[in-house]
């Protein structure tokens, strides 16, 4: 069971607002991760119509990778690339990341749909990842 995850927050115009690799990193997967997540966005849209919940579980698979998605009411997508199956842990991770994202939105200096560059946000996401995913 490998412990690499790729987490991305995708805005309403499909561009990434925040991305991070958690756990052990493998060099060749960097651009591949973005590609996989981007391709999965269509499936996220489909899954959105099937369910009224925010957490959409696994929406896509690519070789060994699973793509889980969580859609916020403002249509911002939280996407996680993972190999292991851990529904509950991932759901909790997404929920907490959603709260972090909300706090970022409440910052008057943050413009919605722009990249999140705050160092504090990055640190907190890593803490959450350690808590739920490892």
């Amino acid at each position: 069971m490998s412990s690499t995850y790729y987490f991305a927050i995708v805005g309403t115009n499909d561009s990434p607002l925040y991305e991070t690799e958690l756990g052990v990193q493998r060099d060749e997967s960097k651009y591949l991760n973005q590609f996989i997540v981007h391709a999965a966005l269509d499936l996220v849209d489909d899954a959105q119509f099937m369910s009224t919940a925010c957490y959409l579980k696994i929406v896509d698979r690519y070789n060994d990778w699973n793509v889980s998605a969580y859609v916020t009411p403002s249509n911002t997508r939280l996407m996680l690339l993972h190999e292991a199956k851990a529904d509950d842990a991932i759901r909790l991770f997404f929920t907490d990341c959603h709260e972090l994202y909300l706090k970022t939105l409440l910052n008057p200096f943050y413009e919605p749909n722009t990249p999140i560059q705050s160092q504090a946000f990055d640190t907190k996401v890593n803490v959450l990842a350690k808590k739920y995913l490892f």
Partner: protein
Amino acid sequence: MEKQYKSIGEEAWKNNTEKASAELFIFTYGSLVVQLAKDYEDYSAVNKQLDKMGYNIGVRLVDDMMARTSLERCSGFSATAEVIAKVGFKLFLNVVPTVTNWSADAKEFSLILDDNPLNDFCELPPKAVADGLWYSNVLCGVIRGALEMMQMQTEVAYVRDVLRGDDVSEIRVKLVRMLDEEVPASDD
């Protein structure tokens, strides 16, 4: 004397104020600062504008405060400091800063704010920090305006701010001069 001000402040807060949503207030203030930043593009100009706005608020606010609390004239500048901290701040922001760092001639003091409700949720972008933006500079203007109505000319400025990485927020108040020369008629 101190206990008296504290209880005056708390009682006025409980009975004589209309409460409004704190979140609405901080979001309004936040978008105000951001809009000023966008308009002026120079953070020191934003500081000045916030101070001016605060000044206009302060000259009116002080009468409001006096009406709600029916306080008498302060015996001296140290009493003024206590009133600002325990009654003024308590009444309008529901926080009580600590009064410290009195200068040798008792004409300067610091207000240490452990938590400033205006700062909730706010994070300054690196450029704002580098250019010296004091996010809650409006408070400095309010204090300056209020004291000027009370016949004291002061210089009020931020010294430290949690949003810029310091551990507490500190406002320095310096009395420049008293504005009226006459001694007011006293009760005895």
